[in-house]
């Protein structure tokens, strides 16, 4: 797949529009879902997919093969998503308190019971911060290794692991609260 994608990029760099169509068909779904996982807006996500593919068309020659194609194209999508979020909320930043201690320990059994309920999980996923949702999406929807996620979100591997750890804790806390609210 990666080799095939690199060959497509080579052809795109030479102006082969049919290669762009193949590339689009291979990546538009994953890119759209990735952007949507952060923006939660299907209109804007579709716009960004278009912008990403235009960028691929214009700058395929810049891909040097030092990273995976997935990392490169998701990285472009991520930058465009962050730009869009900044326009939406000028004070938007990537700041996350990665080192916050998780001093409470949600009951794992409660969480497991709550996790049987798809609505509870969905609700809790929606309440995650954008960077947390992003990492959960890349790890659990795209099944990417943490090293590759680090390349996409442009941060150290340790930060990816910590971010995922805090996302999981936040989900657990949310699920436990929902269990507590249930009559």
């Amino acid at each position, binding site marked *: 797949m990666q080799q095939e994608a690199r060959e497509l990029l080579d052809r795109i760099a030479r102006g082969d529009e049919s290669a762009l169509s193949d590339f689009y068909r291979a990546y538009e779904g994953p890119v759209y*879902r990735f952007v949507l996982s952060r923006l939660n807006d299907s209109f804007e996500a579709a716009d960004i997919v278009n912008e990403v593919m235009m960028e691929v068309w214009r700058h395929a020659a810049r891909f040097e093969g030092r990273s995976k194609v997935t990392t490169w194209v998701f990285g472009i999508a991520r930058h465009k998503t962050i730009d869009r979020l900044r326009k939406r909320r000028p004070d938007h930043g990537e700041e996350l308190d990665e080192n916050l201690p998780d001093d409470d320990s949600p009951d794992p059994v409660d969480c*497991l019971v709550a996790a*049987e309920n798809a609505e509870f999980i969905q609700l809790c996923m929606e309440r995650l911060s954008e960077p947390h949702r992003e990492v959960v999406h890349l*790890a659990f929807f795209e*099944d*990417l290794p943490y090293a590759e996620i680090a390349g996409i979100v442009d941060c150290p591997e340790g930060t990816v*692991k910590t971010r995922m750890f805090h996302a999981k804790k936040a989900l657990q806390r949310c699920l436990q609260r929902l269990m507590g609210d249930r009559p």
Partner: protein
Amino acid sequence: MSDAQTPDRDSELDQLLPWYVNGTLSDDERARVEAYLSASTAAREEVELLRRLREHVKASQPSRSPGELGLKRLQREIAAERQAAPASPRGGGSPGWWRPAAIAAALVIAIQGALLFEMQPERGVGPATGGGSGGSVIEVTFAADATESEIRAALQAVDGRLVDGPGALGVYRVRLVGVAPDDAAAIRDAIATLEALPDVVTGANAGQ
């Protein structure tokens, strides 16, 4: 080794659990995590929770991606970019691009569009094949349950703008930006694109 003997969770291994679940750890990491799991009930419960979360994320269906409509939009933008800057940015390009005939055709379309822009009123209230501001107008009906998002994507696929409607029969008038009224091939192409979306578009024609 039991949980009682290891009251403190291993934070390093805890942080690897999500990637154990998605199957992307190295052999060494996986072996360490499996040893940890065999000794920790809490870690096993956490893995079970993570598996359920992953199943949920996989099963959740986000709204449909742009798909072929998005590809049409992309191709349209690339064509427009080419028309705007006909010199090849790629030092040669592929055969079939930048043919003189295509450039001449683009110029004809642009000139016709400019003339129509001068001659037509702002809104296309005349014959449906007449122009609005710089484009041919077709008539379109949308499925009753089509969402705004789907209608928007359909219009973007043909670079269309709603200029009038709905009429009494639910007919909308859509201006095809940059398509001259006498460019029958481009109009047919746009109609075919819309008709390829039966869940969204129930009818499209060049009008009376």
